[in-house]
């Protein structure tokens, strides 16, 4: 005979304000098998849990139903409480009467009625719950970091520091990411390269870190503690192990008209190239789209000058497969394309640039050697207009609905640097709001205004028109003065919105992690688990999760590393016991279940059965590996005979819930 306890939570007024909790407890007390039905202010509190524990012991409960918030919130809390009182944790069911009842309904009568039905449904299910025991599964002591920007580098360094092997997969020929392209960093104005490149070198020299540059993740299988990842090492046509990075090939290469990605296409590089001086690994890469040898078979200069004999025009993509216990995603961001913003004339006028292009124009290793010159005529600009929020905070299909977060600060930085270096230059910043929440951030912005005399104008630029004299007419509104301005500018800098890297979406599919509508990875909990994805063993680092500046990125990178280390430290992890199992007596051995299993958890064995007439019969039957099964239940529906069932979500349990709702 079942002895079920029902506990209804007020959640302060969160539930009690719209659900008559007393009536719910009273009504559920009359359900079959229920021996105790109580309500309490906060069930999840220490004393609330104590109430449940005492009832389990005193009433010898065989099942517990908690009517409270979402099971995604406190299922574990109550399972632990039950376990500590000696009840199998899987004999606890949660009826979600907060998120799915009190918070969405206003009428007390109907909300109470619904809460009773939800409670009744949980009672009906718990009648059929069975005690479950978790299995243990071993953890591979190696982590994979996808993306080699500052986020990936920091995560890898921290994990390696803790004594675990880490692999970094970077799609570009070098690690470093966006930070390598940045000139100075706010709010301290120290040089980005000076603080980044030592970290890059550290990563390359750390014996626990393996860098797979110019590589991509091709396939991910497995689950937390035991992922199998296939990494595609793209052919760079240079033997990484032989190349010394001397750079002679890049000097001698006759094909020098290739747009230089590192400098945002503002100058050119050769067909065989090393992205920048401090690249890690410092290895040349041949761009097959431009290499004359690859295209026409005529040239081979690099091969001739390479004393190491590293050039290999016949190199193919190769694949390596590796096991990992944890995966950290650090795929970063890109500025959006501005093709759709005709009003800013970005595509018509070379002197209208994005902020990232400005970084390169001002960088000592950039196309102008650090002197800020107009891209069109290499002249010194006297008037520069900055436009904020280009594509950010947009409610249309052209832009992004979110604030890109970093633009206010880097624009203040640019304005300040320009005024510092070229005091004869007038700098205008058109802003909607200046957002500077961060340590020393607002002070930094105020310095730009007060100390450097940058003209901050509240308003937006409506139209940018290149003129025949090489100047640019910037038409804008000054909302505080109530006028429409025309500024005769030399350069316009657009603070383009940032978006997640395009590789993130297919990666999320491979990792079975969730993304939001903007393709940012979704964290397991927006407040309490910001660096974990909802998929166990997958962690999030840096701007792939949302717009971030460098300090925040590094903080999150270390946090993700800490979470990954926490996982790798364990020798084994407890598996979800809600897995599939096959009733051998009913199994036909038809292989339907095996075909739909995404984890390959099902195998077949020939098993001998004793028949009623005492003869024996050998039949092929399915067998589920509970450590591999993740409990999706695809097999249970594919199984024609109903031999396959899912613990915790069994056919009879779900049907009991259906019946209780329809009653």
């Amino acid at each position, binding site marked *: 005979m079942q002895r079920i306890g029902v506990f209804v939570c007020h959640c302060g007024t969160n539930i009690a304000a719209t659900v008559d909790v007393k009536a719910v407890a009273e009504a559920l007390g009359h359900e079959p098998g229920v021996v105790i039905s109580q309500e309490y202010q906060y069930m999840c509190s220490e004393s609330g849990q104590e109430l449940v524990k005492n009832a389990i012991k005193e009433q010898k409960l065989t099942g517990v139903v908690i009517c409270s918030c979402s099971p995604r919130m406190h299922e574990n809390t109550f399972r632990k409480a039950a376990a500590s009182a000696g009840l199998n944790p899987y004999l606890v069911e949660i009826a979600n009467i907060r998120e799915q009842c009190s918070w969405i309904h206003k009428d007390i009568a109907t909300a109470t009625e619904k809460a009773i039905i939800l409670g009744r449904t949980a009672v009906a299910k718990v009648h059929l719950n069975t005690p479950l025991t978790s299995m243990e599964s071993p953890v591979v002591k190696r982590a994979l970091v996808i993306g080699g920007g500052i986020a990936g580098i920091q995560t890898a360094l921290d994990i390696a520091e803790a004594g675990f092997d880490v692999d970094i997969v970077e799609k570009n020929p070098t690690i470093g990411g966006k930070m390598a392209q940045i000139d100075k960093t706010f709010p301290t104005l120290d040089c980005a390269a000076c603080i980044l490149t030592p970290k890059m070198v550290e990563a390359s020299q750390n014996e626990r870190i393996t860098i797979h540059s110019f590589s991509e993740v091709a396939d991910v299988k497995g689950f937390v503690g035991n992922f199998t990842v296939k990494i595609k090492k793209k052919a760079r046509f240079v033997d990484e192990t032989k190349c010394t990075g001397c750079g002679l090939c890049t000097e001698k290469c006759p094909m020098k008209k290739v747009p230089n990605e590192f400098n945002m296409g503002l100058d050119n590089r050769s067909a065989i190239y090393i992205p920048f001086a401090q690249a890690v690994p410092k290895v040349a890469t041949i761009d097959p789209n431009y290499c004359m040898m690859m295209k026409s078979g005529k040239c081979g200069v690099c091969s001739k000058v390479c004393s190491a004999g590293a050039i290999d025009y016949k190199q193919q993509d190769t694949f390596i497969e590796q096991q990992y216990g944890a995966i950290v995603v650090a795929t970063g961001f890109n500025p959006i394309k501005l093709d759709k913003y005709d009003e800013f004339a970005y595509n018509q006028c070379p002197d209208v640039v994005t902020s990232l292009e400005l970084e390169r124009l001002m960088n000592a290793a950039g196309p102008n050697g650090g002197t800020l010159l107009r891209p069109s005529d290499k002249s010194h600009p006297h008037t520069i207009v900055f436009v904020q929020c280009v594509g950010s*905070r*947009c409610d*249309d299909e052209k832009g992004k609905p979110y604030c890109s977060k970093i633009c206010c600060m880097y624009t203040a930085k640019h304005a300040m640097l320009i005024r510092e270096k070229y005091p004869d230059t007038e700098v205008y910043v058109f802003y909607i709001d200046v957002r500077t929440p961060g340590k020393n951030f607002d002070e930094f912005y105020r310095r730009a205004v007060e100390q450097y005399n940058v003209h901050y104008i*509240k308003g*937006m*630029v*409506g139209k940018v028109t290149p003129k025949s004299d090489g100047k640019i007419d910037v038409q804008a509104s000054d*909302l505080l003065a*109530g006028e*429409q301005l025309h500024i005769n500018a030399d350069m316009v800098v657009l603070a383009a919105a940032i978006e997640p890297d395009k590789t993130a979406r297919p990666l999320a599919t491979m990792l079975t992690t969730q993304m939001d509508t903007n393709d940012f990875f979704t964290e397991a909990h927006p407040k309490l688990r910001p660096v974990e994805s909802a998929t166990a063993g997958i962690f999030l680092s840096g701007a792939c999760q949302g717009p971030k500046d460098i300090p925040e990125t590094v903080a999150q990178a270390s946090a993700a590393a800490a979470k990954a280390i926490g996982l790798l430290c364990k020798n084994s992890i407890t598996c979800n016991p809600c897995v599939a199992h096959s009733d051998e007596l009913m199994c036909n051995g038809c292989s339907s279940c095996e075909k739909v299993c995404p984890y390959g958890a099902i195998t077949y064995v020939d098993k001998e059965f004793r028949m009623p007439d005492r003869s024996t019969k050998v039949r092929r039957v399915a067998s589920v590996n509970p450590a591999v099964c993740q409990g999706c239940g695809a097999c249970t529906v594919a199984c024609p005979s109903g031999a396959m069932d899912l613990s915790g979500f069994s056919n009879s349990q779900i049907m009991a819930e259906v019946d209780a709702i329809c009653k």
Partner: protein
Amino acid sequence: MNKNLKEQVLRSSGVNVLKCMRCGKCSATCPSYDEMEYHPHQFVYMVEKGDIETLMKSESIYKCLTCFACVDRCPRGVEPARVVEAVRLAAVRQQGGNRLEPSDIPALLDEDLPQQAIVTAMRKYAK
């Protein structure tokens, strides 16, 4: 604040003025800016406040060219030109509110004026 008028303008324009983030790009882009007493962003803001009679009395409602530059460039999809139009309609629909009478037309005609402009003007400025 005139609640009825506000509701009428909101309904006839179909614009959600609360979407405005007050960036002023509409006014930055407006070719009639200097002609107008109240500018596109002010229209949106004043409609939000319900201060519509002021706008109805202003010449600004006839200065908008309905070029839709503001509609095209508004990052929030607010469509200020529709707000201006709605206020103008509210004005011309009042008794005696017609901006243009058929009898005014002969005086306005000149050889280069396309016929269509007259028709458009009638449509815009009279009920």
